[in-house]
């Protein structure tokens, strides 16, 4: 299908540390179509950031290494690219924004110049053109008095403005794919909403595909077209936003949804946290990684990693509850029996 922009297949990334091998990403497969927003959701340490940074080859290798898998972007496998080849891709075809805008901007370089750098390198603009375009970008991301802001340093910006500046930098060369790694986690709730709105708005204008990485399902609701739920280095469920919110099939997804505050559930419903902590990735469990924390866990869950079940062309899940031998379980979100 030539509608697919990014096609990640069975990506496996490990880190070789003093204490042994950390299997951060253990065979993830997903794709992003042109113009769509894919959200990758999961708690800290589940491997979503590592996946994102591996696409851009920003992980230092050593100690990291891609054990296997492919990252197909416009027909080429980025996993096999050299650093030089990646330089031509980063900032130009694929861009990334990070979690903490305070530390992600060079404190001793004017913001305007930081936007211009990419323009000069990738679009071969001269200084005057780059400056004009940079100011334009600042205006595009909703920065008041962009000419003045162009000459200022990051410490003169507020948190929300810094993130806008990051977005301006990332989108300056009009990349086809934007990876946003927890872009709003470090910001106030009201600013969060503004930034998400801005990203949606820009996506429509520039037809950029977005991979949105977050641990917060609430942030994802309005913005994502498709959602992939990640746990302990593997994707355990994936589908359209509608399917995930209204017909989730994996107990972990149920847990995530039950722990998100929702306006429509009324005051009597309690938030239910998920007991326990994610497994240690030095020695990942051999079965389903969620088994220890799952109230529906079966003997087989501890032994064998669940196979993939395709519920339809867009929605799949890795869970033994889908097997015909498994007992009927009431879906806590939809209320249906299975």
């Amino acid at each position: 299908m030539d509608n697919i922009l990014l096609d990640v297949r069975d990506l496996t990334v490990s880190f070789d540390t003093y204490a042994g091998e950390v299997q951060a990403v253990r065979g993830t497969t997903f794709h992003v179509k042109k113009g769509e927003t894919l959200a990758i959701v999961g708690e800290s340490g589940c491997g979503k950031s590592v996946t994102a940074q591996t696409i851009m080859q920003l992980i230092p290798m050593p100690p990291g290494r891609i054990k296997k898998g492919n990252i197909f972007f416009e027909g080429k496998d980025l996993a096999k690219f050299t650093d030089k080849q990646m330089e031509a891709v980063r900032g130009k075809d694929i861009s990334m924004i990070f979690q903490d805008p305070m530390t992600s901007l060079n404190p001793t370089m004017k913001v305007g110049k930081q936007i211009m750098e990419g323009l000069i390198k990738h679009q071969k603009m001269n200084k005057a053109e780059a400056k004009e375009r940079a100011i334009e970008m600042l205006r595009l991301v909703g920065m008041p008095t962009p000419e003045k802001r162009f000459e200022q340093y990051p410490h003169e910006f507020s948190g929300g403005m810094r993130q806008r500046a990051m977005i301006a930098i990332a989108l300056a060369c009009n990349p086809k794919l934007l990876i946003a790694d927890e872009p709003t986690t470090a910001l106030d709730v009201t600013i969060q909403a503004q930034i998400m709105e801005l990203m949606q708005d820009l996506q429509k204008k520039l037809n950029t595909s977005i991979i949105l990485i977050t641990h917060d399902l609430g942030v994802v609701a309005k913005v994502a077209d498709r959602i992939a739920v990640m746990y302990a280095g593997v994707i355990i469920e994936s589908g359209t936003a509608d399917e995930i919110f209204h017909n989730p099939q994996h107990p972990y997804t149920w847990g995530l949804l039950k722990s998100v505050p929702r306006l429509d559930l009324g005051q009597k419903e309690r938030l239910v946290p998920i007991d326990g902590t994610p497994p240690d990735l030095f020695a990942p469990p051999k079965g389903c990684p969620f088994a220890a924390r799952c109230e529906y866990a079966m003997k087989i869950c501890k032994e064998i990693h669940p196979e993939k079940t395709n519920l339809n062309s867009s929605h799949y899940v890795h869970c033994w509850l889908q097997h015909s031998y498994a007992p009927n379980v009431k879906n806590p979100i939809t209320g249906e029996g299975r």
Partner: protein
Amino acid sequence: MEQVGLEKDMFEVVGKDLESAEAIIRPSLTYWADAWRRLKENKLAIIALVVLALVVIMAFVGPMIRPFTYDQQDFTKINQEPSSEHWFGTDALGRDIFVRCWSGAKISLFIGMVSAIINVTIGIIYGGISGYLGGYVDIIMMRIVEIIYSIPELLWVILLMVVLGPGLKTIIIAISISGWGGMARLVRGQVLQLKQMEFVLAAKTLGADTSRIIAKHLIPNAMGPIIINLTFQVPGAIFTEAFLSYIGLGIQPPLASWGSLAQEGTLMLLIKPYQMFFPALLISITMLAFNILGDGLRDSLDPRLRK
């Protein structure tokens, strides 16, 4: 597609297994046990520790194993190269350099350690008071430290030595008075941190047990940097003493310290280099060992590097 060959009883529900969910793979050690373990793994630091132990032992044993005293002059044997009778040779007055080096070791090490300890103590008290009292007093006290420390310690020590006159006691006084600034700042920082913690905890526990909190938190948090600082102060003090003796303000003959020996050796440097070489070597090895040990301690006591 459904896998063939799976037994139906595998699908019996067993529910959560939180014990394994919360199991920690790596054994957890206390802060000090972990620090000691890390230090032991640092081979260089252990070598340094052993070397220092040897130097200290020799400081006592050295003079005893040769039949000379440190001030015994023999005008028939001046400026002799190292030989089987005089292992490090003799100086311009026929004194045995081996014995002088090791009795000098005693003095240099003594000055180094005592000054360092007094230094650290003054620093802890000053910094502790400044941090505890806080407010204007704290600001003024820290400004005083800042002003005093715009001038290098050595300059202060020289001034004090000129006033106090040379000698063992005066050297210790001079060095102790001049070097406590770093420790003061450190301890003050810890106390300020601790005050914040104390405040928060007090709000929760209604002010109960604040002294236990100080004991349980201040000691582990501050001890690490204090030990490290102490380890680095000693070579600094040894160097200062050597420097003073070298310019004539330190230990006076016939007493020997490494610095005074080096100074005496310099006069004959171009003809009989060994006279300077031995004390210089001892100074260097000792300071090197202290610095390596200090680095090792710093690495092993840094909680962020726990593995």
